[in-house]
């Protein structure tokens, strides 16, 4: 299965990480890597979540994440193919 990365801007408060990982868990998608950082504005955090799935799963995850109250922005990161 293809790896994909979703970038989220979320409210920086307790419980938010749980709501987001819960959404992945309920659908049985493993999170390969997870990165959370407070942004320059401490009200928000940026998350990078790497997971696996086809186009259907990727679209569903973006749309389901967009519905969460604490999620402000969702971006499906383009797969980068870069060689020097």
């Amino acid at each position, binding site marked *: 299965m293809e790896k994909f990365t979703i970038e989220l801007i979320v409210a920086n408060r307790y419980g938010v990480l*749980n709501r987001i990982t*819960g959404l992945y868990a309920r659908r049985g998608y493993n999170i390969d890597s997870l990165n959370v950082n407070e942004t320059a504005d401490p009200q928000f955090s940026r998350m990078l979540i790497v997971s696996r799935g086809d186009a259907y799963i990727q*679209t*569903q995850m973006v*749309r*389901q994440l*967009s519905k969460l109250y604490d999620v402000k922005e969702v971006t499906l990161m383009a797969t980068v193919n870069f060689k020097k």
Partner: protein
Amino acid sequence: MKRSGAQIIIEQLCVHGVTTVFGYPGSAVLPLYDELYKNAHRIRHIITAHEQGAAHAADGYARASGKTGVVITTSGPGATNIVTGIANAYLDSVPLVAITGNVDVPLLGKDSFQEVDIVGITQPVVKHNFVVRDIEELAFILHEAFRIAGSGRKGPVLVDIPRDIQTKLCTYQEMKPADTAAPIQKHGDLQEAIQAIKGSKRPYIYAGGGVVASGAQEELLEFSRRICAPVGLSMMGMTALPASYEWNLGMCGMHGTEAAAIVESESDLLIALGVRFSERATGDIEAYRKNRTILHIDIDLSEIDKNVPSQIGICGDIKEVLRSLLDTLPQRENNAWQQRAAQLKSTQNVSSQNNFSPKSIIETVSRYCRSDTLIATDVGQHQIWTMLYYPFEKCRTLLTSGGLGTMGYGMGAAIGGCIAMGGRQTVLFTSDGSFGMNLCELATAVSQELPIVVVILNNQSLGMVRQWQTMFYEGRYSQSTLHRKTDFAALADAFGAIGYKAATLQELENALQNAPKVGPMVIDCPINIDEKVLPMIPPGGCVEDIITS
């Protein structure tokens, strides 16, 4: 002016137009109940027999009125008892605000008496939930709760308010209700939809709860007439069109009508309006999609392409989208397709094994009902029979648990619906199995003097389970035959209601003639244990697999 947390809750409920709440007091909500006592002239509180009943009543209240229902319970078991009710509202997109008390903030997370993490427990079955840890946030959170519950695709929101937050003081500034017309993610091209409709020879509409939620019954009727498309309904959409409309083919799906299944299979364009393509409605998805274009219109973008891939997906409020389509689409003529649908509808016949059958019982009761009578059901065979045989004419006259399929939903829902509509005539179709789950709420209907007629289709078994065991488990009736000796008529009397037993249509009519204007009545109708819900398309099947006898 400083107000207590409990006073702020009352003010916020009033600002949001709440006049009735359902609930059950307990130690973690005593400050709030003290304010409810002082504000009884502003907010009517209905005490139920069990918190689950209160949650279903708030749900029934919301479905009947279109307003957001409110349920209030204490912490711990009070909170966990409404989880089924919240999940039920979530699966059927019913706007609900649940307020639970909790232990004082310093005691949170210490396994205190009657403490549970209700926010954690309900997380997968709410649109959102909040814990109020700071009284300064209370008014805003309640404001948000009502905004979230009542906007976009509606649903439940839970607000957990520790007891000490209810007693603390802070400055209160009134927060008026938000405009609930929340921005909807724009998606899809209306022009593509118009072209598909114009190019279709045999269009078919599959309409659901989204039509009811957006109040688009008139637009749907006009749309169906304009493009000459027969309509099949999901269970949640049963009141989206009058049953008497010649192109309303009734419910579609596993237990739907044969006419809907055939027309659907012969269509070249399926226009899905406010539905989520439950597997109970589609059956085998490949067969479902074959040979037709699917145009899906829904308010929730995540529903587009979730269960059934569509060629054209449009995200928006059903009423607005239909109005835009009606602005452009010309009147069509399509006699052959029209006649085919009308012919299939007219030849719909369902056999009943004896005279006192579910069909004849429901038809007899329906003759006693008015077009605005509220019909509640529980879950199982009697529920499907109600969908097949009861002629729903007006929107929001049906209270039924579609997505979660909650046995025991009906009694609470009937109470909530009846109260929401000012004591309007209400009928609950239930069964001995379902009624047995929450019959304690009969006490609430008695204390509130509600004119609810409870019709028990009593087959001495869990009928739907038995039907599946007959069809798919070679008649091994594991735990579905009840062997109970409950006398429901005597039980009704014991509750202070009126009880009847009717074994013939004449006895049923006599009982209905005596239905009280004030207070509930229970009619126990014994039916054959082997009555089946037919037609039926087996799980994962398609129209070719339909079982009609």
